[in-house]
């Protein structure tokens, strides 16, 4: 199986652990991943102003690059890239007038009509690999790990690009169960981490992130699994600020779902890049005898 891959900016710098673990796991799953040879930033957020088409140009150019490589589907790992590319694609598919304006503006590019299918690794695993096959391929089951599946916003909303039910998603639950972990259901799984408000209203972002972590722990989770580098920043890297501000909080390991996939596929420890996660992330895996170095 072969698939085109759009990484996005953050995966090459701050979120190398999201990318490298995913690529190693996909290799173990015998999926050939072809990174687009030329890609640009997707813009991180989809433009919500009706008269702002210039910000749709960047993601559409990426989709045209996918076509140029002879692919019909492109896979993303970052939730925000997924959302931006998928929504731009929907617009090009459904809005004839805006499509014409954008195509006319990019006169050096071939006309684009939303032909490419945008998928996230999670729905690729569900729909293309299949849970049964994935289960067969698990070499190191994550037995005994209680992980809260944290979806965040951009994989689920709006409905037209949702990879699962926007209010009652199960895909990340199922993913964790297939890997052998216990998926800990908690009400905040689909709530917002505060996202870019870390710039505009850092205290508000901190408070909503605290709410999510506390909710996960209160429901019995030992760790969180997520897919978005900005969620990872707010819930993981910034956790020290949460622990310092809110009493009675304990540290919670936060993993990218791709790192847990890589562990289950038996990928070597160094490709997990756990040094980029919170310290407790390696410790929990060692405690459960899931790291090779410990075993």
């Amino acid at each position, binding site marked *: 199986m072969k698939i085109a891959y759009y990484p996005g900016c953050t995966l090459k710098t*701050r979120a190398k652990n999201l990318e490298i673990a995913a690529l190693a796991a996909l290799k173990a799953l015998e999926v050939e991943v072809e990174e687009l040879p030329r890609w640009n930033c997707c813009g991180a957020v989809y433009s*919500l102003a009706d008269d702002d088409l210039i910000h749709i140009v960047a993601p559409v150019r990426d989709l045209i690059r996918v076509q140029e490589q002879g692919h019909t589907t492109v896979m993303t790992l970052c939730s925000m*890239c997924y959302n931006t590319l998928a929504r731009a694609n929907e617009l090009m598919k459904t809005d004839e007038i805006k499509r014409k304006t954008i195509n006319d503006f990019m006169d050096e590019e071939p006309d684009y009509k939303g032909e490419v299918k945008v998928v996230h690794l999670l729905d690729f695993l569900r729909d293309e690999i299949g849970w049964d096959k994935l289960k067969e391929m698990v070499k190191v089951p994550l037995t005994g790990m209680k992980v809260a599946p944290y979806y965040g916003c951009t994989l689920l*909303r709006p409905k037209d690009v949702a990879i699962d039910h926007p209010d009652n998603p199960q895909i990340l639950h199922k993913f964790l169960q297939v890997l052998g972990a216990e998926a800990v259901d908690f009400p905040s799984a689909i709530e917002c981490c505060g996202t870019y408000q870390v710039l*505009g209203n850092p205290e*508000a972002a901190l*408070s909503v992130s605290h709410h999510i972590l506390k909710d996960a722990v209160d429901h019995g989770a030992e760790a969180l699994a997520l897919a978005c580098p900005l969620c990872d920043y707010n819930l993981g890297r910034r956790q020290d600020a949460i622990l310092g501000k809110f009493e009675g909080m304990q540290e919670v390991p936060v993993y990218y779902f791709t790192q847990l996939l890589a562990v289950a596929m038996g990928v070597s420890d160094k490709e997990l890049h756990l040094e980029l996660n919170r310290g407790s992330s390696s410790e929990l895996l060692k405690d459960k005898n899931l790291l090779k170095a410990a075993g």
Partner: protein
Amino acid sequence: MPIKISLKTIDEQLQRKVREISGQNFSKCFQCGTCAGSCPMVEHISATPRKLMALLQMGQRELLEAANTPWVCASCHTCLVRCPRGLDIPRIMEGLRQVVLRQNINRIEPSNLQPEEVIDLPQIAMVSGFRKLTG
């Protein structure tokens, strides 16, 4: 606090701009409050999305400008998914932000950010934050 409403207090220009930028007809809102009950930022906003829709329907520019809601909104889209009237509230928030940002009034000043505040930030935080909070 009672609000005085007359033909003179309705700012039709603001209503028209928000309608044009958002592509949304906020008159559809029937004030059920599902958005307010769904908003993760509800503790941090000075007026709920429901109240903002009412203020828009009445064209109350001053009260709308005084609300921090569009600037604390994280575009999480929960209100959109749950709105029984199918109103795209995140787009209306964008409209309210854009009428300010298009006057070259930034909500945050990138040049005032301290290096230690941003050194660790993922790029998507910077790109999305600047897209939403600066003109």
